[in-house]
């Protein structure tokens, strides 16, 4: 297993969302409630650029984005990073709870439904992270 994969603690989170407001709220929630380093990407493309640098422990990945969808980003990042791919948690406003299984089967660490409660967000991220480990 890679070094990143073996980490049991979250230090670094990448938020990928095209909606500025949601990005801001997510960032505020995480920065306000945790000590994690929070990095932002406004599109899939930007996210992939980010992944070329220092790898985060978790990627919060919006599904419905223009140009590249969350799934596209996931696929390309997997190709790019292979086993070094950080945990990916999808964030989506589109699906129902029952469909979370599908994302899991594809290799996602978890799915967080929008709208989410910013006060509980770090908890949800940690749960997904540990579940996969």
């Amino acid at each position, binding site marked *: *297993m890679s070094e990143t994969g073996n980490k049991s603690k979250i230090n670094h989170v990448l938020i990928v969302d095209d*909606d500025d*407001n*949601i990005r801001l*709220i*997510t960032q*505020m*929630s995480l920065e*306000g*409630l945790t000590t994690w380093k929070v990095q932002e990407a406004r599109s899939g493309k930007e996210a992939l650029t980010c992944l070329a640098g220092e790898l985060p422990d978790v990627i919060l990945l919006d599904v*419905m984005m223009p140009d590249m969808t969350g799934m596209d980003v996931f696929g390309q990042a997997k190709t790019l990073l292979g086993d070094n791919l950080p945990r990916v948690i999808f964030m989506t*406003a*589109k699906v*129902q709870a*029952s469909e979370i299984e599908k994302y899991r089967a594809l290799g996602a660490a978890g799915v967080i439904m*929008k*709208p*989410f*409660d*910013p*006060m509980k967000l770090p908890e949800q991220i940690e749960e997904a992270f540990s579940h996969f480990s």
Partner: protein
Amino acid sequence: MKSFGATKLTVMVGALLLVAAVGMHMSGKQFTTQTTSRTWVLHTYQVLDKIENLLYTLRSAELNQTKFILFGNDGYLKEYDRFARESDEQIKQLQEMVDDNPEQVTKLSRLQNSVAKMLATAQRIIAIRKTNGIEAAKVLLNDTASSDKANSVETAAKDMAQVEQRLLQLRLSSLNTNTQKTQDHINLVNGFFVVALLLIVWIYSASREKAQKSLALQHAVSRMLNESEDLYQAINKIERLIVAHGGWACASTWLLSDNENVLRCFDVFSEPWLNDAAFVEETRSRKFVKGEDLPGKSWEKQQAVSIVNLAKEENFPRKNLAKDCGLVSGFAFPIISEKNFLGVVELFADSKHELDQDTSNTFESIGREIGRLIERQRTQMRFRAIFNQTYGFIGFLDTEGNLLDANEPALQFSGVEAADVLHKPFWEGPWWAHDQVQKERLKDAIRRAAAGEFIRFEAHHPAPNGSSIYVDFSLKPVADSDGEVKYLIPEGRDITERKEAEIKFRAVFDQTFGFIGLLRPDGILLDSNQSALEFAGVKLEDVVNKPYWQTVWWSRDPALQETVKQAVEKAASGEFVRFETRNPSSTGEMFDFDVSIKPVTDPSGKVILLIPEARDITQTKEAERRVSEFYSTVSHELRTPLTSIRGSLGLMEGGLTGAIPEKTLKMVKIARSECDRLIRLINDILDLQKIEAGMIELKRADVQADHLVERTIDGLKGMAHTLNIDLIAGQPTNAVVHCDQDRIIQVLTNLVSNAIKFSPPGSDVLIGVKQDVEESSLKFFVKDNGPGIPPAQAHKLFARFQQLDQSDSRQKGGTGLGLAITKAIVEEHHGLIGVDSEVGKGSTFWFSLPAVSKLPAVSQPDDEVQQLASHIHPALIIEDDDSIAEVLKEHLHQDGFEVVRASSLKEAESLMRRYVPLVILLDLTLPDGDGLDLLTALSTDNARRHIPVVIVTGRDPDGVVKCGYPTLIDWVEKPIDESKLHDAFNAVRRKIGPARVLIVEDDVAAREILSQQLNSLGVSCLEAKDGAEAIKVFRHSNPDLIILDLSIPAPDGFAVVDILKEESNGDKPLIVYSAMDLNSDQKQLLKLGLTAHLTKSINSIDQVIETVREFLDGLVPPPPDI
């Protein structure tokens, strides 16, 4: 009828001539002159006799010809032939007799000519009788009768006879002259001779006259019978004839009355002087029983009887009346047909009439002919009645197609007279005049029918009123006993009413928007409407008479064919079947169909037809997809801004944006809480939409009902506690319910949370399950002590956005959709939902679900097996060295495996918690332990002990062998030998030896024999007694080969193969060993990997074993060498 009288006559004449000849001889040579004269006289008599004989013969021939025409009896024909040949012989004899007389030779040749003509005509009529039947022949017969052909023979014969008579007179006078000149003794001899001659002449003339008379009478009767259509007319004429010819004064005919068993007078004919006699009057009104009076006597004896002296007769009630009018003697003969007594003809004479045997015979013969006439008349009458009264059109054709007869309805329909159409080709008749095509069709039909074929088609004919009728037309050949077609019977039934109804129905059927067909219960397509044919771009003949699932509508998709086939079978068992399909049209475009198959039963409940129906629901489906997409989009578009709103409010409320005044915080809290409600509302709307659109798939399983209750209570404990409500579970039931566990818990949660919300603090909510009496359903109930619901409102509860008091909604935080969703979920489970409530006494919400599934065992294997079967399992490489892992990965990829890699035991264990790998490639030396430890751990784990393992190691393999891991396939030493690795992979596909063979066979003995034989081969056997077990064992143990019987308890062999096809890449070696003879289609269906089809009655067990050996190839040892 025989020439009885004539034969006797000839014998007599012959005897007398002999006497005469002796006399002549005795007279000596000195009387040569006289002798010569006498010889000439005798010769003349002989010629005369011959002529008479010839005439007699010809008349007999003619009589027999007539009889043959009338009755068609071959016996008459033979008689005719005999007489015709005899006449020929007689003419030849005459020629010899008169060749010295040129005048007679000429006359004879004229006679001969006439005879030839007469016989030729007779032959022609006979031929027509044979080919064209009685009616045609009768016409001709009457034609020739009226012509003078027959007379010309008589004339020619009389002409000849006159010449001979003249000669006779000359010769007799010459003989007399000579006689006077002779001596006394000679006179004596001559006198004797003359007397003999005169005697000859007398006897000859008398008996000749009698025979002639009798023959003429018979002939006349035959003709009469021939000519008269009407029975009364015929009998009357016969009576006249007999009276006129036989010197009788009165003739009466008595017929047996059908139901009284008495003879009644049918007709009386008498000489004019008797017309007014009381006797005749009395006769007309009398009836006699058997044995009574003259007719009764003839009836009793069934033969001719006579009363020579009426006055002395005791059994003669009309005695006095007869005496009054001077009648002296009586005679009666029976009318008999084929031994059936029909009546009597009685005759009276005013003189003594003694009757000899010959005359009696003649009259009896006449009686039989009358009998035949009556029988024929009656038969004809009955036939005519049927023929004319029948509702349909019937006719009678010769094999050429000429119309011999047509019944009244047929004639009336076209308004023609029989004469207009009879004896003309049928197709020229008015019925066919309107349509050339139909006319040709008829001609062809007549040709074929004449060759023996039964033809039937639908025709249409114009009616005189301008409309037209539809006729179900048939043409039936009628053959004689030799199988030769003699006549054709055309028949037409008016089916206009039916046809018109059919046309109307057909129009609806064909033009209706949906696709409709008609199947036999075995699935053969009988009919399809136009819409369906047009959709597929085919004609009816392309699809009709084929199994429905093999028709063009389904043929593009084998899976669909199977679905349809099963649906047909189900419908044939009386069930209504309905399903949705998606099929390509002829242009390749995809269409959605709502398909149903309805069984149609007869009154006894037997399925006689199936009606498949398909509705194009492509647009509906498309709309559904759009709606679904719309909901999905709306959901996204609504939730995105809500995420920001909810997030912002959450952050503010959580204090992450800094301290805010309390009043503001209160407002923020309200905004956040309402925002949450809005989100719930959106979720509920989407949920409800999905359930109602049937878009959620229920993940059904058998679940303990009590378990559902427990889980619901667990989930709501917190809420109940907060509101100070006690949740109490009802009595445990142990009942099992087949349902989607999560969804039912959702329903229960909804009902219980409602109950909590509406119950006063400190009260209880009871949650329980009840089984109904028949145990066919389970009733879940939630009982609260809330305010209760007025009955009038109860029904509103389950509708959308219906809260009884609008203020409630705000207070209790509901969306107004909870119960609607609940109801939708219950109904999706085919359950019922309701509420029993009384205001002030609380409410009990309940729903019921069907108790336990009746699905076959196959569809619900135990959890473990299902898990194994329903996931895709990649190969797992456990290897710490990256480069070796890469090489292994490459090889596995080449062999078609998906690959997951773990670089440590711990990682492998973690992976295996989520995946069951198809195969494990295991390195023994790993950073965190020994690979053998993993093997040991796996072998004790039931779910994973079957996973094949290939060890890839640099270590000595000794330890590997010792660990006894059951599914260890091989070990491959490092550095890796590629071919060995591939061998190992191939072995993986077959799963490790000893090779395992699954025997699927319901017969214990057969299973045991196979098993024993295979064991001796070194193969381990798995056994299954039915299809369900076969699939279960297959999933568990993944055997190397399957020996499959087909007729096993459900699912049968075919179904098993179908299921295995999907589960095993379809490459498992298979030996079908069953008693069934399989056709090629079935063999195609019964195919997995290497497949052999063996038949129990043909192939021995040894052959099966040999095939097993062949299929398992290297996995079993080769047969021992002998």
